[in-house]
């Protein structure tokens, strides 16, 4: 393989395709964080008193907390006073009331991203809520969803229009003091998406949010809350990009899912935040708390993620399996190249009887990257008959990368069955050689093999995302032949 190393080095200089900056006037708060800033955010959004109190409580708690150090990631300390906690694209009037009112430059940005807001062919059937920096700019397909009784809107609109739902469910899965980054988010979150699917309704289309961090020195702290009422079901897609900047930017989002009796939520993520350059300069710190609670009987929450971006990923989409017979799933592909660091995995907390969970994690490391799977399977004494199966495989490409597997299994019920399998190996030279001998280029061969390695996860993604994920994967691994 040594003959290839030069070629490899050259190819490793991967390009980040979404790294442009949009020139838009934005309305930002100056960097810094104190109770005044928290109050200012709340005021800018005309929030009810209960929400301001909630934020302040979270902020005060956050001040007593320490940044977690247990993850297998290394970074220079974050100066939380050097971040702007609010940045909104300055619209000519107030918030846009329809797509026509949205700043054309913004729309052009989405077009560049390949995420049109208009009802174009490719996205037919997908309703998009786009979060630009911290503010939700537009939501499509409102009417069609409205007819079905589905609420899909920006978090701010939900606060205004459905405060009772917000008050009831906000923080009910991820309490404001849950962890350092969740507490920070609870204090300063600026916008996000809200979904409520009423009892018995199957959401008639895939819902989708596209996140983008644009402004410099800005943190993004969005908050997503999805509630599937009794026997409701919804599939939600989330995509993320950010421009190339030399400094690190913080993204500390919180996603909460609630599934009531017989409800199903499928949450898919394709995360492609700017990962930094080939020397590890810049990139997003993606410190995200995602958690779903199967609150009702026979409910199901399924997380699928394809993580190719971010300088550092710290993310554990989890399921609390409270309802009897409820099901949690986690399917993940995490790719780390150059100097990226990923510490990602899941938590499956079995509380109810006969709860089941499946974890499939595929980690790919290349360049000088560190890729860690960290997953907890916990079976409480009440979870009779609980079952878990976990499989996590790591693929190493190149001699300087690292792959780690840190599973935690904690079982307190003797009728439970918990199984874990893991393997770590290099991309098979035999397989590579076989492809080369058949005239396939090294790069295509790697793509084929890696796709095969990840197939079991990709097949969980909705069709239109699977294609995008596949493309992202090959871009992320350009030239990473070991």
């Amino acid at each position, binding site marked *: 393989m040594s003959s290839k190393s030069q070629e490899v080095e050259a190819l490793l200089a991967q390009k980040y395709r979404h790294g442009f900056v949009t020139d838009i006037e934005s309305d930002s708060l100056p960097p810094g964080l104190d109770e005044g800033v928290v109050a200012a955010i709340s005021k800018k959004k005309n929030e009810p008193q209960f929400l301001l109190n909630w934020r302040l409580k979270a902020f005060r708690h956050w001040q007593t907390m320490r940044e977690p150090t247990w993850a297998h990631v290394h970074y220079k300390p974050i100066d939380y006073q050097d971040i702007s906690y609010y940045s909104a694209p300055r619209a000519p009037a107030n918030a846009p009331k329809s797509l026509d009112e949205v700043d054309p430059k913004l729309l052009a940005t989405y077009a560049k991203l390949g995420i049109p807001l208009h009802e174009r062919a490719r996205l037919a059937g997908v309703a998009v809520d786009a979060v630009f920096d911290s503010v939700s700019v537009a939501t499509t397909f409102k009417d069609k969803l409205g007819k079905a009784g589905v609420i899909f809107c920006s978090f701010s609109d939900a606060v205004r229009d459905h405060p009772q739902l917000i008050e009831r469910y906000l923080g009910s899965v991820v309490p404001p003091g849950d962890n350092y980054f969740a507490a920070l988010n609870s204090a300063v979150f600026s916008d996000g998406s809200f979904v409520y699917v009423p009892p018995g309704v199957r959401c008639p289309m895939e819902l989708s949010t596209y996140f983008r961090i644009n402004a410099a020195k800005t943190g993004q702290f969005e908050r997503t809350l999805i509630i599937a009422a009794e026997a409701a079901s919804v599939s939600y897609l989330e995509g993320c990009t950010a421009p190339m900047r030399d400094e690190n930017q913080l993204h500390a989002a919180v996603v909460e899912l609630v599934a009531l009796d017989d409800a199903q939520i499928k949450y898919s993520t394709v995360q492609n935040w700017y990962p930094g350059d080939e020397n590890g300069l810049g990139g997003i710190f993606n410190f995200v708390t995602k958690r779903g609670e199967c609150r009702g009987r026979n409910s199901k929450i399924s997380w699928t993620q394809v993580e190719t971006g971010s300088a550092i990923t710290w993310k554990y989409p989890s399921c609390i399996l409270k309802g009897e017979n409820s099901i949690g799933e986690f399917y993940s592909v995490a790719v780390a190249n150059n100097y990226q660091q990923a510490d990602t995995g899941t938590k499956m907390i079995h509380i109810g009887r006969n709860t089941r969970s499946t974890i499939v994690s595929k980690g790919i490391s290349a360049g000088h990257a560190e890729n860690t799977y960290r997953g907890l399977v916990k079976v409480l004494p009440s979870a009779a008959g609980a079952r878990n199966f976990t499989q996590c495989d790591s693929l190493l490409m190149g001699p300087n990368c690292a792959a780690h597997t840190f599973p935690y*299994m904690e079982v307190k019920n003797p009728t439970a069955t918990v*199984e*874990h399998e*893991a393997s770590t190996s290099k991309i098979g030279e035999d397989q590579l050689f076989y492809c080369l001998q058949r005239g396939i280029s090294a790069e295509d061969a790697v793509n084929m093999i890696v796709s095969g390695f990840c197939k079991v996860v990709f097949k969980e993604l909705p069709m239109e995302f699977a294609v995008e994920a596949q493309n992202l994967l090959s871009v992320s691994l350009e030239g990473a032949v070991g």
Partner: protein
Amino acid sequence: MNTALSPAAPAQSPALRAFAAQWQSRPADALWPVREKALQRFLKLGLPTTHDETWRYTNLRSLAAQSFVDAPRKSRSDIDPEQPLSLLGRTEPSVSLLVVNGHPVMPAAGSLPDGIEICSLRELAGLDPDTLRRFLEPLSDADQQRWALLNTALFLDGLYLKITGTVSVPLLILHVAAGDGADDISYPRIVIDAAPGSSATIFEHHVAQGEHTPLNNSNTHIALGRGARLEHYRVYSTGAGATHLDSLVVRQDQDSHCKQFTIALGGGLVRASLEVRLDKPGASLDSYSLLVGHGDRHVDCVNIVTHGAPNTRSTQTARAIAGDVSRVIFNSKVIVDAGAVNAQSQQSCRGLLMSPTAEIDTRPQLEIHADEVKCAHGATIGRLDPDMLFYMLSRGLDRDTAQSLLVYAFLADVLTGMSVASARASIENALIAQLPDSQTLQKFR
């Protein structure tokens, strides 16, 4: 890393004050600097809390309030002669060495077989401090090593075993813990220095006698020279009141092989750590852990195996059983250093929960910094397979018999690895005695 003594300031805790006081009573000898360094590091780390990743499942908070004192020095005549002195049975030729509260009772000259020389650590510190110093340096700065640091600082005596050739009979080191008071602590320390090409089988058997069992902060440090072979057992058979904070460190040279058994049959709280470095090409390790939880026993086994050179190989086989309100923990980490190509590692850990109030926790971890490796692990926790049980019942077997057989089968992968037949027999006996239908099983063997 903490720069102050600790955020919770446990320097103020009676335990840490007691350790510092013990340190004041230690003689100033040639090893003072390395031992003082160890103490300082220990005090800096403080007592572990469950926020420490490697102490997540074991809470030692109650130790903080204890004002520890050195366990008394005792002689052979203080030891109850009825004590089951041998794990190996009377038929197996073997050599026994007695260590009471960390103090060795030296055997008569000429009673040792060929291929082995021993001396006490106290002696060695005077005669050849440089050799001893080599065995005082910690293998890594892993947090889990903190109790090894304390032992390094405070051990009073111990045994140095130099294996020079092929030792034809198993060697049994019997650790007797016999305290006078509730605050006793002992620091047994064993050094095994295996010369290139040597081979030996060594047992360390921990037993207790009398009303008070000192806290056992034991440490064994093994170095295997090129091509050396060692089969090492540590067996805990103390009572429910015993606490073991035991560290075993193994450093392996080229083509050496170590087979290591950690067997927890007793003890109230057992924290058994194993840290192995496969330092040179061709070194290999087969580690076996058999962890049995009963009553309210707490057994926490932590392994770290580092592949530090190319072409190294390791396997870890752990079987944990937890009944009653016990808790059994098996943590294992395999680290493959950058450049350690062709490393191979296998971890298999299986847990069997026998009661609704017991708990098993396991963390089979991999930390891989090289791409040319083959590493895998499998872990399961569950109950006896109901299909297997039904199959046996449908053939007319008693439920107790069927369950016992299945438990025995569950442990077979560890038991069959044991080369010393008599040791296997007595360990099996001890295990079987704890199963529901021990009678049939005795026949089965």
